[in-house]
């Protein structure tokens, strides 16, 4: 091979072989449709500079990982998103997961909780406890964390429009357990922009929503220093159908909008940026996903250092949670999902994730059964404790293809960010439907590829065969809604009503002012004001926002 160029190899060796037998496909492509070459060599990395582009783990630009020794200290946090029914049932599932060796909690809230309605609101009909646990007041949180000491766990909450309320409940619950707010560990998703783009649980218009988000940044910087104040999420953007490059481009553009909003609110970048965190999808394109995580890390480091001139190295680090791709699961031959999930989980760990949720094989039907979630947890334990992948940092670093793909994904994502900058930033682009339209085009193309057979989905459009029905699916019983309504009515009866009213009035005043809203939320939840009551106050002050519908 000595002095041959890639072109010469192509002409002398590859071309004759292709003449004898054509390849499986006319073209091989990335998720964004970029063509993949047969093989990659140093010729594909003409400007590659090991020091500048990779560096060492734990050092700028963090391509190889945010910690110097990564999983050699401890493996990623095994964090399964879980919640259903009432607080009692979910508390049992949490204790089961902790017994199985899970290392962090992740609360799934039901939709009424996410959208600011109590369980007895007419719009909550049929939704109580379905996709997550119903939390109406501090009373529910007390039950949810029964016998789980808050100084011993870290808790992630998938909560956005109502994030300050749930965070306030967690802080007050800590106080009840005699745990100081400075000892609390966890994350509030608190990423409203991707709700407008892809997930749909927004309540208020963008401007007051951005204020609530940055109020959390400012409050936690002082009082809850170990809290991850936001989890800027590409996960749902990808689930909605984006490409890998769009996932990082749109997510980092959202990140830029939050950083700018906090700076505009008078915060110094290095006081809040170290507590920003991210959340990505791990899809079925194994190699592309590994490169995606590395590209996102390098691009964010540059954004924070160059664009925002952050000085603290922790402000440059993109720390992230990963969930395997829900949209890659199939209802057909559901046990195949175990393999898909393992492959996606492997990509996340080779990409250097800080925590991981592995989907359960039955999730194309219902929230996971105990049997299914146990396999999902064991999958991570096999990767982390049984195989050798956690023994070394960034084992694929230096692979010609992975480095080439990391470069090209970073470039593509940076182009999306420039485009969004030129529109006037993430909020303006959302209002015009830019990201939504881009995602819809990608998801339609993806669907067409499946239907034309260009993209294989095993058990769906190829290798189709009969499969047994899954038994033991989790069902949330209709009594749950009734029980939850009754409890919330009882809370309203038992509490000091004057105190609750007074706290709600103070919240209204603060919401109308420019002051930080967090202390008023703490007072409201402490007085057992319900989430719906609190959101009614905010809806009155801020108004509501309809979906930025593009169709």
């Amino acid at each position, binding site marked *: 091979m000595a002095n041959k160029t890639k072109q010469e190899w192509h002409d002398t060796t590859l071309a004759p072989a292709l003449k004898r037998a054509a390849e499986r496909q006319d073209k091989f492509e990335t998720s964004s449709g970029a063509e993949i070459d047969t093989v990659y060599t140093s010729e594909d990395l003409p400007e590659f500079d090991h020091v500048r582009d990779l560096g060492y783990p734990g050092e700028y630009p963090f391509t190889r990982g945010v910690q110097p020794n990564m999983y050699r200290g401890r493996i990623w946090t095994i964090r399964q998103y879980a919640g259903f029914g009432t607080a009692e049932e979910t508390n049992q599932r949490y204790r089961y997961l902790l017994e199985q060796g899970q290392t962090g909690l992740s609360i799934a809230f039901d939709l009424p909780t996410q959208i600011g309605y109590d369980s007895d609101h007419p719009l*909550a009909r*049929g939704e109580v406890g379905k996709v997550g646990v119903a939390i109406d007041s501090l009373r529910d949180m007390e039950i949810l964390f029964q016998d789980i000491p808050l100084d011993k766990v870290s808790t992630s909450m998938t909560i956005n429009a109502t994030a300050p309320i749930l965070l306030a409940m967690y802080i007050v619950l800590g106080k009840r357990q005699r745990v100081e707010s400075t000892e609390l560990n966890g994350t509030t998703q608190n990423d409203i922009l991707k*709700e407008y783009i892809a997930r749909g649980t927004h309540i208020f218009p963008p401007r007051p929503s951005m204020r609530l988000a940055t109020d959390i940044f400012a409050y936690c910087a002082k009082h809850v220093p170990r809290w991850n104040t936001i989890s800027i999420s590409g996960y749902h953007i990808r689930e909605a159908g984006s490409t890998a490059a769009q996932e990082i481009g749109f997510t980092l553009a959202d990140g830029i909008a939050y950083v700018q909003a906090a700076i505009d609110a008078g915060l110094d970048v290095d006081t809040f940026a170290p507590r920003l965190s991210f959340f990505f999808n791990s899809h079925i394109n194994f190699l592309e996903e590994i490169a995606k995580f590395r590209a996102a890390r390098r691009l964010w480091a540059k954004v924070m250092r160059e664009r925002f001139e952050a000085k603290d190295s922790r402000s440059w680090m993109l720390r992230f949670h990963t969930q395997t791709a829900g949209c890659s699961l199939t*209802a057909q031959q559901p046990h195949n999902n175990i393999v898909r999930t393992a492959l996606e989980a492997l990509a996340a760990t080779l990409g250097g994730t800080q925590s991981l949720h592995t989907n359960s094989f039955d999730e194309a*039907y219902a929230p996971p059964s105990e049997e299914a979630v146990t396999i999902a947890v064991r999958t991570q334990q096999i990767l982390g404790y049984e195989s050798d992948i956690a023994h070394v940092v960034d084992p694929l670093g230096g692979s010609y293809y992975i480095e080439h793909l990391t470069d090209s994904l970073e470039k593509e994502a940076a182009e999306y960010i420039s485009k969004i900058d030129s529109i006037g930033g993430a909020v303006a682009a959302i209002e015009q439907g830019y990201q939504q339209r881009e995602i819809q085009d990608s998801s339609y193309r993806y669907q067409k590829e499946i*239907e034309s057979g260009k993209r294989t989905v095993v058990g769906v459009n190829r290798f189709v065969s009969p499969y047994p*029905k899954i038994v033991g699916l989790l*069902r949330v019983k209709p009594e749950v809604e009734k029980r939850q309504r009754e409890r919330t009515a009882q809370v309203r009866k038992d509490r000091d009503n004057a105190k609750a009213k007074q706290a709600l009035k103070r919240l209204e005043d603060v919401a109308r002012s420019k002051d930080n809203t967090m202390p008023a939320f703490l007072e409201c939840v402490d007085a057992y004001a319900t989430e719906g009551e609190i959101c009614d106050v905010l809806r009155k002050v801020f108004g509501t926002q309809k979906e930025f519908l593009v169709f």
Partner: protein
Amino acid sequence: MSKGRIRVLLAKPGLDGHDRGAKVVARALRDAGMEVIYTGIRQTPEMIVEAAIQEDVDVIGLSILSGAHLELFAPIIQGLKKKGREDVLVIAGGIIPEDDVPALQQTGVKAIFGPGTSTGDIIKFIQNEMTQRSTR
């Protein structure tokens, strides 16, 4: 049926924001020559019935992934009946366990298209139903 193009209302009852499927189906039906009205997310049964009547549609497609289908589909069918529009073809898609399908069909949902359905199958189903109805 003497009308030309098939008119379809695609709606998302319930509170979940997963609209990928609804939007993909909307586009596929439109590409197949149907007239498609998409309501967007968070529609109540009442809003959906109202929109279907206002838009004088032949078909309603319901997309839901929140698990509230048993509670929310029945009032839609009842609402249509009340307005004398039980002729409207109602179909659905999303995350719906197989065990719930018979109950939903009994209420009057004609077909449930689960994950992995080809949009071509949905198009064919609607076209067949419409042809049968016009020749009845």
